């Protein structure tokens, strides 16, 4: 699903350098990336999603060479093929839960907001247990509800790849397990691949594979 080779990326401001000789993830795999803060985990997700472009090397997601796409195509690819679950949910407070979930459809021509999409959005929120909160503003939700809404937003376009950046980092232990259950269920239902950055070692046994980013960087491959 994901194949990275000879990747090099540097932040010009702070001298941070990310070198990945080789890295791959199989389709349908649930992979956890761990490692200390500042080791480049989030940067890796941003590179895979095409938010950042590598200085050199290749990034292949399914059949698409992300590193070769221009800006517009990278955006279209991201919004149609990748679901991004952010650590801080990144919901827009001025929109309702339903509008937040449908938001990607309203900001690009790559996705079409049809009645079928609306129906799926309602179905998805029912599955996530926030079906009764569709008209509530995002700011009025609890942390757990916000994360569920953020997951719904990421899953609605039925992406083949889900990138989760500390998706459970802001949740209490009970919510953490429940949200992860929901995320895994949704990933299985959609036959998607999950790449999740986490600091929570208790959750690691639930993943198919775990990559310690520091070790990985030291070893030079994973």
């Amino acid at each position, binding site marked *: 699903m994901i194949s990275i080779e000879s990747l090099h990326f540097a932040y010009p401001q702070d001298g941070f350098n990310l070198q990945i000789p080789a890295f791959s993830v199989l389709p349908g795999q649930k992979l956890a990336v761990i490692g200390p803060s500042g080791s480049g985990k989030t940067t890796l997700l941003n590179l895979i999603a095409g938010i950042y472009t590598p200085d050199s090397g290749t990034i292949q997601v399914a059949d698409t060479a992300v590193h070769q796409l221009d800006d517009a195509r990278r955006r279209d690819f991201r919004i149609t093929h990748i679901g991004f679950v952010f650590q801080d949910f990144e919901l827009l407070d001025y929109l309702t839960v339903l509008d937040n979930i449908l*938001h990607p459809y309203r900001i690009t021509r790559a996705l079409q907001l049809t009645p079928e999409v609306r129906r799926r959005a309602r179905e998805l929120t029912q599955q996530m247990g926030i079906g009764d909160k569709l008209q509530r503003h995002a700011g009025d939700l609890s942390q757990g509800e916000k994360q569920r809404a953020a997951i719904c937003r990421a899953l609605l376009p039925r992406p083949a790849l889900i990138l989760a950046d500390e998706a459970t980092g802001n949740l209490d232990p009970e919510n953490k397990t429940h949200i992860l259950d929901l995320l895994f269920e949704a990933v299985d239902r959609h036959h998607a691949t999950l790449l999740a950055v986490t600091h929570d070692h208790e959750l690691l046994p639930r993943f198919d594979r775990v990559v310690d980013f520091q070790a990985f960087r030291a070893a030079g491959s994973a």
Partner: protein
Amino acid sequence: MIDSFYIAWKYLVFSKTRSATLVACITLIAVLPLALEIILDESERQLVKRADTTPLLIGARGSALDLVMNSLYFTDEVPQLITTAAADDVANTGLAAAVPLYVRFRARGFPVVGTTLDYFDFRRLELSAGHPFAILGDCVIGASLAQKLDLKPGDSLVSSPETVFDLAGVYPLKMKITGLLAPTHSADDLAVLVDIKTAWVIEGLVHGHEDVTRTTDRSVIMDRNENNVTANAKLMQYREITEASIDSFHFHGDTAAYPLTAVIALPHDDKSGTLLRGRYLDENTAYQIVPPAAVIDSLMTNIFRIRNVLDAVILFVGLATALALVLVFALSLRLRQREIDTISRIGCSRSTIVRLLAAELMLIVLVSGVVCAVLLWLVRVNSGSLVRALILNH
């Protein structure tokens, strides 16, 4: 599909206070000069129209503007008084008809205009109900006044005393409303029109009281001889003119010396007008003759000069507000940087972000435009009353 306006609208509705402030600022800046323009145009129309239809005005020497404003628009400023002799003089020249005016008193805040029935013909006033004043104490009221005070023919209206504590001054007179004017959209709509003698009754120059030769109350009589009876202040004066009391009303002194505030002169033709004006050129005469149109023209010139200054001030305030709005918008962009980053990470292009922000701005301008249009419509619809209330002060 890109729903820029939908998202922008949601944001504006959510940030009600910010949106309302922006709309209020833009609306105010747009409405102020336009509303001022409408009001000034309407004031010019009202002032000029009435002045144009009033050929000449004769009054005491002094402020021509006070004379015109009091005689045409019944303002509070009472010019120096003249006498009925001035009206007789005009009539005696054979050059013009004279319509006397005595605009000094008020009834429940509205001007009491003492005049003759010629005034009705001159102003082409029509009655929507009742009949013109016929006897002492009758009055005809303007349409707006009737509406404001909920009065109709058959009701009565009491004139206001000039000062509460002046026992020797003007007493209130209870007047009977005999007629109601059809709307004229002029100062007459808010006037109480009475016969000039009724105005003198209000002043006390014409008065009625119990017959001192027949009174049985000895305490009223101060002195009695074969030719004369002198009564004291205990003598009851009538403050309402009824069928029973009307015969007791009488004049004291020479009626030619009775006061007027102005005389409207209606020359028979242009030449007569010019000749009549010539008679008042002498600086030593007690009277002045003014063409109201010229006085109002001069007033309008001054108003337009002030308007130019106001326009400049509004322009600068507008510029300052526009800069403040740009600053508010720029600061709000900074506050929303995280949100912009988020939608950018989701997959929103830079041009779409610009489009979203432009949609917000357009909606704010659109709502401001709608509010502005409604306010301007209200100002236009009510411009007549606004001008009368704000500029003509009646």
